[in-house]
């Protein structure tokens, strides 16, 4: 039992909970960030266990990826806001069936 792995799992689950319960796009996305970081925590914990610099490097990449994702994601949210004047996700259900 590794404390950080447990913490990471809990954070991941909390993030998932946030994705399901948050009702604006920004907050949903914020929860996703939480999940990404929980994965990073797990990576670092494993890196410590295995003494692997690879994992730390990968965590670095993850941060870069997250940054890229955030850029596009926030851009999208802004663009939608410009059109809809809202960031709520529940209103977006014109497409269904």
């Amino acid at each position, binding site marked *: 039992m590794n404390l950080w792995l447990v913490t990471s799992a809990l954070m991941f689950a909390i993030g*998932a909970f946030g*994705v399901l*319960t948050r009702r604006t796009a920004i907050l*949903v996305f914020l929860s996703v960030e939480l999940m990404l970081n929980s994965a990073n925590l797990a990576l670092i914990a494993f890196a410590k266990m295995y003494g692997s610099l690879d994992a730390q490097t990968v965590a670095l990449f993850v941060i870069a990826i997250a940054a890229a994702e955030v850029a596009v994601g926030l851009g999208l949210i802004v663009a939608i806001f410009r059109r809809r004047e809202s960031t709520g*996700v*529940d209103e977006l*259900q014109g497409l*269904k*069936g």
Partner: protein
Amino acid sequence: MGWLLLLTILLPLLGFVLLGLFGKRMKEPLPGVIASGLVLASLVLGAVLLAGGGAQWAIPDWLPGIAFSLNLDHLSGLMLLIVTGVGFLIHVYAIGYMHADAGFSRFFAYLNLFIAMMLTLVLADNYVVMFIGWEGVGLASYLLIGFWYQDRVNADSARKAFIVNRIGDLGFLLGMGLLWAMFGTLGISEINAKLEENLFIPAGLGLAAFLLFAGAVGKSAQVPLMVWLPDAMAGPTPVSALIHAATMVTAGVYLLARSSFLYINVPEVSLWIAILGLLTAIYGALSAFGQQDIKRIVAYSTLSQLGFMFVAAGMGAYWIALFHVLTHAFFKALLFMASGSVIHALGGEQDIRKMGGMWRYLPQTRWHALVGALALGGFPLLSGFWSKDAILYSTLFYSVNSSVVFYVLLLATAFLTAMYSMRWFVTVFLGQYRGHEHPHESPKVMLFPNHLLALGAVFIGFIGLPEPFPNLLEGFLAPNLAHLEYEKPSLTLEWTLVLISALVALAGLYLGYRFFQQKVMPTWYARFAQASEHSFYVDQVYNTFLVNPLKSLGSLLFDGDKGLLGGFGWLGTLTAGIGSLLARLETGYIRFYAAGLLIGAVLLLIWGVTR
């Protein structure tokens, strides 16, 4: 030389093809002449071949293991002579009878087809080949009964004949199936040879015999498949004479005779043959009394006489059955053609209530009719007398099935036969003419064949005289029939019986002659005659309990089949329903989707950790 045998079949078949294709363009007597000439050619060819000791011809493996084989021996030779001989005469007669009919050439085409098929039937040395002829004559019969197809009744009758025959044919087919399973061959001589050389009787032989017999029942209009024959009188009279009296309907008897080696081994089936024959004989005789159609009376008499033949076959007296076939061919053809002459004379009238007094108008036909009626009634020394007497004799002595019951009942039937044959003669020829036409005698071309037939009806019986006279026919047929040993009665007894049957016939004839000249019939008779006119309501019973329910079931199945499709459609609807339910899962909510995704993930993961 064997191919000449095939030629006997091919000649009339050629006539059928020629007349069928080009007959319409020929002038009137030509089609009749061609047709008659080809049948005559067949007759001559057949006779020459028969005189030369018979012939065989075959295509081996026509179907795998089944040869298309023909065999002209004494048995088939006799039939060949009857078919082509009587057939030729009737062809000639028809030239006159069908004069000026729009379908003149078509008629002769059909007749030639019939002859070809009938020859196939009798010459066959393989049950399959026989079956070809068997159904072929059925087709010809169908075409000829419905010859005047514009009339719905005729068309219906034709159809009925074919369908009822098919019931019997199914038996024939299944019988062949069983024979094939038992013997691995359907060659008649081969099966006969196997049956002769093997002492043991294969199990199932009785069933095979019975199934074949079912075919004979259909074709020869025995009880219970007799209903088609009276209706078949809807065809032109020569047809009735040729097909429904002289030849085709006796095919059943011929089948039994051909398969005598088989039936001789299964007396229990033979007993059934005799019983059904007896029933038919009685039924036909009783039904003949009430008929008002000149041809239907003769038709029922045919039914009855066929019953006689079956009784003989059931007794194992195959030569006697064939003897009766022979004599019957002559006198019954004669009766029909005399009837045809009457109808011809009256411009198509067939109702005997509008006849009478023809004695005066038809100076030659009257003699034909008289000879025919007397021969049918068993007037001593005429052909019918000898053959009928032989049948009565066989019911007493011939085999294990012989019994006094048969004898007594058959004798009574013979008595009835004599009576109704007189009824026919008396009502048509004696008394006053009750119609409005101007009766006239038939042309020569119709009378000439009747002369010959009348001669036959008088004298042909002498080839099968009882002992101690020489019996030409039995000896002639013996090599081709199964032989049954039986204890012969003393000559005295034999001749006593001859005397009894002669007396019974004379009594019947006389009584009929007197009885049917009465102006007013007794009530009991009137009541009987009414039931008889409707053939004891057999048709109605069949229609009510068999035909109509089956027809309704057909419609029901047809409609039900659409329902079946609906059933499959229901399956489709169900699938589509599930589909739209599933599609409704796409609610459009992102969070719902995320939930679905995560729940799916969690479930998979739970499986992952718990497995």
